[in-house]
C-alpha cells in the first residue's frame, strides 16, 4: 500500500467519521445512536490501524485494538444492556430544532477548517488534513451534548468527543506515546463504569433519565 493510497483511505475514513458525527447529532432514536457510535468507533479503529501501518508506528496497532474492543464492542454493549435494564429503549428524544443544529454543525466544520489551516501548513504528515475533521468531531460532540436532554445521549455525545480526540491524536501526530494512550483508555473504562452507576442512581432517584429534572441547584429564585 503506498502512501498516497493510505492518505486517500484515511481521508475517506475521516469523512465517514464526520458523517457519523452528524448522524448522531440528528438521530432521535436511542438504538440508532448507539449503532452510529459503534460505526464511528470502527472507522476510528481502522483509521488508526492504517496510520500505524503507513507510519510504521506499531504501538498504533495496540491503540487500534483498544479502540475496537472498547468503543466498538464494550461500550455499545454496556449501553445496550443499560437501556434494556432501565427500559428506556422505546424513548424517542426531542431535539431542539434540527435544521438549526445542522447549520451550526456545518458552521463548526468550516470554523475548524479555518482554525487548523495554519497548522496544516506546518505538518508534513500524510494525515495532516484530517486534523480539521478531528476538531470538528470534538465540537460536534459538544454540540450534541448541548442539544440533548437525555442522560444516555449526553454520555454518547461525550464519548463521541473522545473519539474526535483519539482521531486527532492519530491523525495529527501518528499517535501519542503508548503510556498516554493506555492511560486514556483506562480512564474511559472507569468513566464507563461510573456512568453506568450513575444511570442507575439517576433512574432510581428521578424515575427517568431525563436530565431536565436535574436543574434544581441554581441561583435564580
Amino acid at each position, binding site marked *: 500500500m503506498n502512501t498516497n493510497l493510505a492518505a486517500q483511505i484515511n481521508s475517506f475514513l475521516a469523512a465517514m467519521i464526520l458523517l457519523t458525527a452528524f448522524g448522531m447529532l440528528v438521530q432521535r432514536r436511542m438504538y440508532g445512536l448507539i449503532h452510529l457510535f459503534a460505526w464511528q468507533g470502527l472507522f476510528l479503529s481502522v483509521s488508526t490501524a492504517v496510520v500505524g501501518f503507513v507510519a510504521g*508506528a506499531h504501538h498504533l496497532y495496540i491503540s487500534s485494538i483498544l479502540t475496537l474492543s472498547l468503543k466498538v464492542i464494550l461500550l455499545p454493549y454496556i449501553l445496550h444492556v443499560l437501556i434494556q435494564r432501565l427500559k428506556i429503549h422505546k424513548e424517542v428524544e426531542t431535539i431542539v430544532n434540527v435544521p438549526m443544529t445542522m447549520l451550526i454543525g456545518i458552521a463548526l466544520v468550516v470554523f475548524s477548517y479555518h*482554525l487548523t489551516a*495554519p*497548522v496544516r501548513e*506546518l*505538518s508534513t504528515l500524510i494525515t495532516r488534513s484530517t486534523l480539521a475533521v478531528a*476538531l470538528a468531531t*470534538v465540537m460536534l460532540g*459538544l454540540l450534541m*451534548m448541548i442539544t440533548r436532554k437525555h*442522560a444516555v445521549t*449526553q454520555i454518547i455525545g*461525550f464519548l463521541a*468527543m*473522545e473519539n*474526535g*480526540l483519539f482521531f*486527532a*491524536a492519530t491523525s*495529527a*501526530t*501518528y499517535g*501519542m*506515546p*503508548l*503510556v*498516554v494512550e493506555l*492511560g*486514556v483508555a*483506562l*480512564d474511559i473504562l*472507569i*468513566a464507563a463504569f*461510573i*456512568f453506568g*452507576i*450513575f444511570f442507575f*442512581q*439517576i433512574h432510581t*432517584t*428521578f424515575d427517568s433519565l431525563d*436530565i431536565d429534572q*436535574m*436543574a*434544581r*441547584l441554581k*441561583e435564580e429564585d
Partner: protein
Amino acid sequence: MPLLILLSVPLFAAIVLAFIGDRKYAPEINILGSAATFAAGISLALEVYVEGPMLAGGKFFFVDAFNVYLAVLTSFVSMTTAIFSRRYMRKERQDGHVGPIRMRFYHAMFQLFIFAMLLCLLTNNVGVLWIAMELATLSTVLLVSLYRTPSAIEAAWKYFILCGVGIALALFGTVLLYFAAEKVLGAGGEALLWTNLSQVSGKLEPTVLSLAFVFLMVGYGTKVGLVPVHNWLPDAHSEGPTPISAVLSGLLLNVALYALVRCKVLVDGSTGTHHAGDIMMGFGLLSIIVAAFSLLRQKDIKRMFAYSSIEHMGIATFAFGLGGPIATFGALLHMLVHSLTKSAIFFTVGHASQMHWTQEMDRIKGLIKGNPLVGWGLMFGVMAIVGMPPFGVFTSEFLILTATMKDAPLLTPFLLLGFGVAFAALFRRVQPMVTGPVPSYQRPLKAAHIPVMLHMALVLVIGIYMPDFLNRWFHTAVELLK
C-alpha cells in the same frame, strides 16, 4: 525513594481500605495512610531542598520547588482531612446518612483521590498529568453523590459531565502540544516530558501552542473553577460530604491550577508574547467579580464557601497571569494559604451544619457560645480568607494587589470591587452564625480540634513569620515560572 513511597502509600492504602471495608478501625487506617504520605512528602521535600530539582523513575517523575511544595501541602491537608473525617463521618453514620458500603467506598476513594493528585503533581509527562487529572475527577464523582439525595446526584452528574468535557478539551490541547513538540523533540515519550519541553519552549511553533493553550485553558480552567466554566463547583462542593468539599476546594483546584500554570509557562515561552497571561488575567478577574457578587445571595453555607473558592482561585490565576516576581510569589503563597484556610473553614462548617442539622445559614446561630472551637474557628477562618491580617492570606493579597497596582493599575478597581463585595458578603453571613445566643435546636458535638487549630495556626504563622525555607522555595519557584 521517598517519591516512590509518597505515591505508593495512598494507592496501597486505597486497596487496603477497599478490602477491609467498614471496620471500626478503618478511619484510623485512613489517618495512618495519610500520615505516612505526609511523612514521605516531607522527606521528599527535604531531599529536594538539599539537592535541588531532580528527575526520577527514568525521567517519568520530576520534582522541583514548584510541585514539591504543592505535594507537601496536598499530603498535609489530606492528613488533617482524614483526622477530621474520623469524627465527622462517625457522626454522619450515627445520623444514618451513610451505610457501611458507602463508608468503604468513601475511604478507598479518598486515598485514590490523594494518589491521583500526587501523581498529577509529580509526573513529568504532560500526558500522564492529564490522565491523573481525569482520575482525580473520576474518583471524586461518586464521592460527591455519596448521600444519594436527588440534589447530590444532580451535583455529581454535573460535576462528571462538565469536568469530563473540560478535561476532554484539555486532552485536545495536550495533543496539539505534542504535535508541536514532536517536531522539535521527535516522536515518542520524550516529547511529552515537561523537562524537555521547557528547555525548548522557544523553538515550539507559536500558532500551534496558542491554539493548544485555548483548549488547555478552558479544560483545566474548568477544573480550577474559573468563570464562566465554573458551574459544577458550587454544586459539587455543597452536596458532597464535607471532608470531600475540603479537599476539593483546598487541593484539587490547586492541582488544576498547577497544570494550567505549567502550560502557561510553555506557551508564553514559545510565543514570546503575554497572551496566555492576558487570558489568565481575564479569567481570573471575571471569576473574582462574578464569585464575589454571587456570594451575596447565598443561603447554603457550603455553597457560599464554594463561591469563595472560585474567587480565590480567580485571584491566584490572575496573579499568575500578571507574572512578575512579586505577583508570582504572591500567587504561590496564595495557593498555599488559601488551601489551608479554606479546608479549615470547611472543617468548622461541617461541624456547624451537623450541630444544626442543616446547611441553611439562617438556621445556624450562636456557634461561639455553643461550641467555641467551631465558632471561633469559623470566625477566624473567615477573617483569614477575606484577607485580614495577620493571617497569611493578607500577605499574599497584599503582594498581589500592590503588584497589580504597579503593572496593571487600571484593573485594580475591579479587584478592589471584588474584594470589597466578597468581604461584605461573607461577613454579612458569618457574623450572625457565630454570634448570638444558642438556639434551642442546636446539639452539642465533639468537634475535631486538631485539624482546625493546626491549619489556623499555620496560616497565622505564615502571616507573621514566614520561615526562610518556604521563602527560598517560593523564590526558586518564581525563577522557574519566569
